[in-house]
């Protein structure tokens, strides 16, 4: 941003003791200009229109109104898919988190000293992270067929990339003293890693896994929409049949499940850190 200072030279201030200091001009006008341009372009492209929003905004609530009162009789049929969703995210998170461990070690620059290995592993992790989970789920349904296996795979892949990134950043910030001490009296690299570095990153690693699991339960509800099993499957079905009262019941059940899971995981994470 040096060019900015050249166009708008910094202001000179003379202090009381005669010294001169330079105050750089604020970048705010530039930021605002860029934001305004981006907003105008976006409004053009997306067809944003306040009139439509005001005139037809009430349509938004028609489906919500039809969701109430929720169809309580539908509840017994929700349990199966709900537990499928939870199981999918539990297993997927566990597989992904365990798979992430070796990759995170390979991507941490304080343990592996080979730049090539580090770059390749990091590139791989960020590539996997950018592929949308929904697309992974769709591909998985073609490979494994419709059902929970596809959903579990998608969640495992997502968790793998997410935890992998967090974990290697964590490993890079640990205190290397214990590791070097163990290596210096003859322990192998693997052994010193497990004894000296793992205990340092373990609490935050588990906390991250729990956090990821929370998010995955929510995400798993969407995955069903592409046929990857769980709650999304019946949600999709009921929406296309326009049985909105059953949809309301499904959403309420999902909400309660998410609240309970979040409360438990929040408690555990508090204990860990």
């Amino acid at each position, binding site marked *: 941003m040096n060019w900015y200072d050249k166009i708008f030279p910094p202001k000179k201030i003379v202090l009381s003791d005669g010294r001169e200091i330079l105050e750089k001009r604020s970048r705010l006008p530039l930021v605002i200009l860029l934001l305004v341009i*981006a*907003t105008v*372009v*976006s*409004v053009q*492209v*997306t*067809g*944003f*229109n306040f009139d*439509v*929003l005001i005139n*037809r*905004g009430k*349509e*938004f609530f028609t*489906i*919500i109104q039809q969701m109430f009162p929720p169809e309580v009789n539908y509840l017994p049929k929700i349990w199966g898919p709900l*537990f*499928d969703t*939870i*199981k*999918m995210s*539990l*297993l997927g998170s*566990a597989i992904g988190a365990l798979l992430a461990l070796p990759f995170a070690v390979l991507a941490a620059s304080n343990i592996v000293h080979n730049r090539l290995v580090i770059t390749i592993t990091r590139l791989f992790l*960020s*590539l996997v992270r*950018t*592929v*949308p989970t*929904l*697309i992974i789920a*769709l*591909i998985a349904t*073609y*490979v*494994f*067929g*419709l*059902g*929970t*296996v596809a959903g*579990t795979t998608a969640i495992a892949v997502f968790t793998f990339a997410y935890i992998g990134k967090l974990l290697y950043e964590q490993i890079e910030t640990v205190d290397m003293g214990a590791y070097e001490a163990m290596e210096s009296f003859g322990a192998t690299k693997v052994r010193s890693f497990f004894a000296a570095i793992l205990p340092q990153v373990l609490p935050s690693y588990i906390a991250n896994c729990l956090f990821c699991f929370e998010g995955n339960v*929510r995400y798993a*509800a*969407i995955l069903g*929409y*592409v046929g990857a*099993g769980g709650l*999304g499957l019946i*949600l999709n079905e009921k*929406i296309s049949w326009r049985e909105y009262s059953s*949809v309301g019941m499904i*959403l309420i059940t*999902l*909400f309660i499940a*998410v*609240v309970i899971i*979040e409360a438990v995981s929040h408690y555990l994470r508090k204990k860990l850190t």
Partner: protein
Amino acid sequence: MQKNIQEQLAKQPKTWIFQIVCALIFVVLMAWSTSALNFSGISEGGGEITKNIFMGIFTPDTDMLFNLTKQGVPYLLLETMCIAFLGTVVGAILAVPISFLSASNIVPKPVALVGRFFIMIVRTVPAFVYGLMFIRVTGPGPFAGLLTMSLCSIGMVSKMYIEAIEDMDIRILESLDACGCTTFQKIRYGILPQLMPDFASTIIYRFDMNLRDATVLGLVGAGGIGSPLIFAMNAYRWHEVGAILAGLIVLVLIIEFISGRIRIKLARG
């Protein structure tokens, strides 16, 4: 020396019971969740299909990738970016009053609890349900996608806002009060400088996420790059999928790099 070490080791708290219990719980949970897996659906041609998919994805359709009309990848990416941008902006603005109403150091506890409950409800409803609701308002297209995105952003953005607000240093406001500042001056010099970096960082991060999640909108026809991607997948046109994915991945990586830079700058001040 040897004895000292042994004494120290003996002093360590005995945690093996706790560890075994944890491991047991983990194993039981895993065993319980594998019961959901049903491998019967796996088709025999799975390997063949996988090969076709990856062959297609890694040889993207270059015609589509560099086509500058409305069906080409560049325009679709621009549309997706615009949806994500405006969606984030609208969501970020809507989240400000909600988060001030749910910050426990500003409003009484019961009000804050109600606010948080509301945020949780908004967060739980899956994106495509919102998409369907908004399509009734605006008809299918990017406008519906934008509104859906803004509603989905509210949950996470206001959660981060609340953390920033609750970490705010109230003493600065008190000293400004003591200097005789007006309410406007207190907001301008006491509150905004404290909150802006956190808020901006949250918004940029959310923009990143929205760009990534934009494909979900395609499920219900709410504009962006999602619908062509899912159409192409359902029709097994893997070269097109490859082209769209290549564009999307490159875009997300670039945006992630830029936003990471900006956020580091914001965090260091």
